């Protein structure tokens, strides 16, 4: 049993992608929330004087990268949920009894979950264009892709790490709901964090989504709070940490 088994990882990835494409309700359901935020906040606050907005950037431009980050969070939480629903129906045992290392299983899950989360983020990006979003140029797309991948790996890894601590999907869903919104509001995705008291701002600094959204903003809009290399470095670190944590915790999941 090799630690990294490409064929096994591919098999797990392919299954996630097929399931995603076959359940349109899941695609629509996962897009509905971010889309509402985009439309209601984007139009509701257009032209409003929001403290801390970068010079010459209007609110919709500021918001779209944040909503894309939000979509990624949402998509990633579904990946954690997928593990638990496999457990609910007994399918997880079928995976665990195969001659595939736990690390490979986690990597396959992350590959699948990241792919579906990125597809959802791209859909949101496409929808935002007719709503008035203008991205900086075609050259910004490869950089955007890099950040999407890093955000996906970070949060799908977190989802798997969390899911491994629960035995049923209900408890997990509850915790995820309590986690998604603080992560979102404390990332500068919807509004700049400068308005928060200083201790709260420190919390934002340990939130990987802060760097994810900032990096996306640098790529798509050309305005960012931190240097690009800081965003990139922080996300690489958080990806490695989350994948290792997910693999470590999943290794200890009792199969029966």
């Amino acid at each position: 049993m090799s630690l990294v088994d490409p064929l096994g990882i591919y098999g797990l990835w392919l299954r996630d992608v097929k399931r995603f494409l076959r359940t349109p309700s899941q695609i629509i359901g996962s897009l509905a929330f971010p889309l509402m935020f985009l439309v209601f906040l984007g139009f509701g606050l257009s032209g409003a004087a929001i403290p801390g907005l970068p010079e010459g950037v209007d609110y919709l431009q500021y918001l779209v990268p944040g909503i894309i980050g939000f979509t990624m969070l949402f998509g990633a939480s579904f990946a954690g949920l997928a593990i638990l629903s496999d457990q609910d129906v007994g399918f997880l045992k079928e995976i665990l009894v195969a001659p595939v290392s736990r690390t490979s299983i986690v990597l396959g899950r992350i590959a699948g979950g990241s792919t579906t989360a990125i597809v959802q983020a791209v859909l949101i990006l496409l929808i935002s264009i007719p709503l008035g979003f203008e991205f900086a140029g075609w050259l910004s797309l490869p950089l955007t892709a890099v950040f999407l991948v890093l955000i996906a790996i970070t949060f799908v890894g977190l989802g798997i790490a969390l899911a491994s601590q629960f035995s049923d999907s209900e408890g997990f869903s509850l915790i995820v709901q309590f986690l998604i919104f603080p992560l979102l509001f404390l990332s500068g995705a919807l509004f700049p964090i400068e308005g928060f008291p200083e201790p709260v701002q420190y919390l934002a600094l340990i939130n990987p989504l802060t760097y994810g959204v900032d990096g996306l903003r640098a790529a798509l809009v050309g305005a960012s709070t931190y240097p690009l290399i800081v965003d990139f470095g922080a996300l690489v670190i958080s990806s490695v940490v989350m994948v290792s944590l997910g693999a470590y915790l999943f290794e200890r999941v009792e199969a029966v």
Partner: protein
Amino acid sequence: MDAIAIDGLTKEFGAVTAVDNLSFSVEQGELFGLLGPNGAGKSTLINMLVTLLQPSEGAARINGHDITEEQGKVRDSLGIVFQEPAVDEELTGAENLAFHARLYGKRKTERDERIPEVLELVDLVDEADMPVKNYSGGMQRRLEIGRGLMHEPEVLFLDEPTSGLDARTRRDTWEYIQRLNEEVGMTIVITTHFMDEADFLCERVAIMDQGTVVAVDSPENLTASLGGDIVTLSLGGTPKELFDRLDDQPWVREYTVTDTDVAITLENGDTRVADLVRLADEVGVVITSVDLHTPSLEDVFLSLTGSTMAEREATTTDEESSERDPSNGERTSDDHFEAAEVTE
């Protein structure tokens, strides 16, 4: 080399010993049964053998590979069909098989060859490209058996392969299992709490009770070991006088008392029924019914453990909810026998 060699295998969950110091072996090509009531430890044993659970003590080898030291090799050489359905309902039958094959390291050329073979074997060629959610219970079960065979394992475990299936599908599943064993020569281990299933399918059975194996032999030898016939008398109570009289009769080989019944093993049961009725009459005991039959595995279980399988299941579930005197427990054996009769 034995297909499975178990040596002192033990599994404890906290204070509960689910599997207690088991030792036995299964030969290559054998169709072997683990028979016992729910809660006897059959599934725990299987889960240890397929590397899903770590044993607390003891060791076991599958095709010579140690279940704790060589998990990868053990997993490669076995296939398992779990008790609960474990297929991806969104995928088609063929896709489920392909998914499984990838996890077992089968490349595309091997998959293209093996998947149609397996579909043929489990009779699902026409349904191959249908989503599994549209399959019937029997079809799903067949797909799972097929999936267990995908990587051509040397040992196939089937955990309660026919629970939840209707009588006809059950029969069909038995035939598949038998064919596999005979035509492919694969070692097959099934767990079951159905006596008739063990009797019909298995060359040898291990009878399990409360985490231990109480006997390992062929169903024929096990039933023959009881000797003679079984007469079961249903009584108005459990009168001691009658049992004292039974003790005195040289033709009574043994008897086991349960709830309101007494099962008596004796030679030439048909000629002794009248004697038994007379005995009961003498001590003033009312007999509500008399049943005479040749011994079954159910009788073997009763003789070895002192209770019927149904009583064991009733008491295991009782222990979980509340303490209840087993002798006052409701008889649930009726549905048990019913299940056994369906296929007679």
